[in-house]
């Protein structure tokens, strides 16, 4: 197990190095940073001094090394736009996004798995057909359309729920949470539904097809021949086998939910990282963009590693190969 863990962490470190390199190159691709910093009439002398002060006269590899050093210490530079450390900006926005994604994931699992099971066990039933048809709509409607329709219905017409923002938040140390106030929870409803919809459909369809596969396998036939109750066969034996790929997909989807909550956050003006990134893009705020890139990369690597480890917990066959 330990060797497996070390190997996975080694791979993760390599991937992160590559991501860091890309993010470092971003600074160089968008042009000469010095030109953007100095007055228009600065002399060559002044520019050279600034260049030296910033370390930009050093060879690329040395610069990359320094960039890595700063990054590891958590220093992502200072935002061009609002002149604050990028790390602080991200830390401020992170809770909003994470809470939104957590909510959306729970929602999609809580609904997706039972619906998928329903569709697999009673494929010809009315309910299953209805769910299948609706899920097709769910998977093919773009997030911004869903969001806007939800806002129109529940915020504008019915006036039940807020249409933007996080509502009131409570500060728990560095973490600002919306879970503890009524307005915070109400504000969470529409965005999390919007974000969850696609994943819900995905999980439902995955559970359905996996379960149908597993139910036709020899060991389920054998379980039936042993006279076990249908409930035990379906929900204890078959579902556990069917959930294996769901773990992977959910894990990977959490990554993309965090990384690409951008659209939902924009529609609902949710003060999360996505909104921060969109604003950074429109102001060419390179340090924020680079940090965001690094963060998203780190997220995916972490999630993939955790998913692999989880797999080893659930599937005994992997445990043996690993150890």
């Amino acid at each position, binding site marked *: 197990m330990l*060797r497996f863990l070390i*190997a996975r962490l080694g791979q993760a470190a390599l991937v992160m190095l590559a991501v860091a390199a890309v993010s470092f190159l971003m600074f160089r691709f968008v042009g000469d940073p010095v030109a953007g910093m100095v007055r228009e009439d600065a002399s060559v002398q002044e520019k050279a001094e600034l260049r030296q002060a910033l370390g930009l006269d050093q060879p690329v590899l040395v610069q990359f090394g320094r960039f890595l050093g700063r990054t590891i210490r958590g220093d992502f530079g200072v935002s061009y736009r609002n002149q604050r450390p990028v790390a602080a900006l991200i830390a401020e926005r992170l809770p909003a996004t994470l809470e939104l994604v957590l909510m959306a994931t729970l929602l999609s699992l809580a609904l997706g798995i039972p619906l998928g099971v329903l569709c697999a066990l009673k494929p010809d039933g009315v309910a299953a057909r209805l769910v299948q048809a609706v899920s097709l709509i769910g998977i093919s409607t773009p997030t911004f359309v869903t969001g806007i329709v939800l806002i129109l219905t529940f915020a504008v017409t019915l006036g039940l729920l807020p249409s933007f923002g996080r509502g009131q938040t409570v500060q728990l140390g560095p973490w600002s949470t919306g879970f503890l106030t009524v307005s915070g929870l109400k504000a969470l409803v529409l965005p999390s539904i919007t974000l969850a919809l696609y994943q819900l459909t995905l999980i439902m369809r995955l559970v359905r097809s996996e379960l149908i596969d597993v139910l036709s*396998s*020899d*060991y*389920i*036939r*054998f*379980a*039936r*021949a*042993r*006279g*076990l*109750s249908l409930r*035990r066969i379906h929900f204890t*034996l078959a579902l*556990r*086998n069917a959930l294996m790929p769901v773990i992977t997909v959910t894990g990977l989807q959490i990554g993309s939910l965090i990384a690409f909550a951008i659209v939902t956050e924009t529609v609902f003006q949710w003060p999360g990282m996505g909104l921060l990134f969109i604003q950074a893009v429109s102001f060419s705020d390179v340090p924020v963009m680079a940090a965001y890139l690094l963060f998203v990369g780190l997220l995916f690597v972490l999630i993939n590693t955790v998913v692999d480890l989880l797999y080893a917990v*659930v*599937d*005994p*066959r992997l445990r*043996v190969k690993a150890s």
Partner: protein
Amino acid sequence: MSAAPILAIDALRIEYPLSEGGTLVAVEGATLTIAPGEIHALVGESGAGKTTIGNAVLGLLEKPGRIASGAIALDGKPFDPTKPGDIRLGRDIGAVFQDPMTSLNPLFTIESQIVETLRAHLPLDRRAARARALDLLRAVGMPEPERRLSAYPHQLSGGQRQRVVIACALACEPRLLVADEPTTALDVSIQAQILDLLRGLADERGIGILLVTHNMGVVAQIADTVTIMHRGHVVESGPVAQVLRRPQADYARALIGAVPRIDVRLDRFPMLDGVNQGNAETARTELRRRAGTQEIAAPAADAVPLLSVESLVVDYGAGLLSGRGSRAFRAVDGVSFEIRPGEVFGLVGESGCGKTTIANVVAGLRKPTGGTIRFDGKVIAGEAAAPRVGRARRAIQMIFQDPYSSLNARMRVGHILAEPILFYELARTRAEAAADVDLLVQAVGLPPETAQRFPHAFSGGQRQRLSIARALGARPRLIVCDEPTSSLDVSVQAQILNLLKDLRDATGLTLLLISHDLAVIRQMCDRVAVMRSGQIVEMEESETLFAAPKADYTRQLLALVPTLERIRGEADIRHGG
């Protein structure tokens, strides 16, 4: 036999309603009874309906199949398997399926799978169920049962898994056991153990066993009575010795005749080869004329070997990426043999003995770790070998085991067969290649319109004919056949083996035949090498080897193979006191 039969099936008819209306009758008028302690074998080729009957008794018919008429009774009490009332699956009827690799759920321990079966039917607490599970594992002869309880299925060997499956089936002391091909996926030595186990259960506990199988040898070895089925109908039924020795029905005679014999070598399998035989003859003569150069001579001992393999070593898992901790597995360990031109050389052994690895190395699909292979005097594998690419591969072709996955389902047969001809530039134009394809199709005894169709239009046996035609298309001098008939029915196997023999006689081909089936080897091969754990145990002229095996391992293998020659109750060799 005075007691009520354990299982009585009376005039059973099983139908599958078809979606376009109409019904497919899978089983019609099947009647059989099983007395306490009796093993009743249900045999037939694929599509005979034998498995369908087993599934019907277990209430596991695939949808939309249904029992249309007839009755099934257990211990004299009629019951409907789809609506388990008094009689319960798992408690009163146990089941053992073919593949022990897939019968057990990979995510749960052995203990949990046996205990859940026990607790589904009996009022046992966890501790009592566990103790019972341990007893069951002991009863089925599982080594170190305490340790196996906490094991997962993948940690057990195939034979051990089948023991667990049988333990599950026996958990609640059923009256009847339905065993569907219980040993087909196992090696002969393990098969022998499992068969002994089943026989013991019938003798000691008086369990009735319905044994569904295609293997006549298995029937001869352990069954008391046998029912032969063909296309859903019972063809013949009775005591094993009577049915196997003096079959009355034509089909029963043909089926039993097609079983390869291990006691004596026959020139051909005694059966009709079907149509197109006349065309096939001329086509083969033409093939031989085109191949040109070789003269066919009886394989002579002093001939220069066509293929010579010298101290071949193949390791698995020694590559760069396999990680530091992993040790290489030596699949082939210093094997040497020679194949003379025009001879059929057999490699036989149990699974994991390295025979398929050798086939792959000879065919150039895998590089050896050590040793050399010479073909026609030139080194083709080993240290000094030039890389075998492109046309260098032409002279050695291969036929694979599974005819379903070895033909590209998206290409027409004509295209599949023309590919090697064009690749090796054996024809100048596509039209010429197409003419060659027609010839090949005829040579393997298929109708001329074959080339226009896709592989899915053909049965397993026909597909294997196509694989042979494809190999022949390259005009090879050596064909490596890796278990060419082990996924086919016996009558089809007989046809394919006859075809290989005919082609060999007509074109002077040399064959390397790899098989786990000793009877097939005896019928086909001039010389045989017996392998075990990567080494050759014994290599001999085929007739000498089968008549007077020298190595202990060979003798053991020969003794374990269930054959028609040893029928239970006739001359009790193995079970005799």
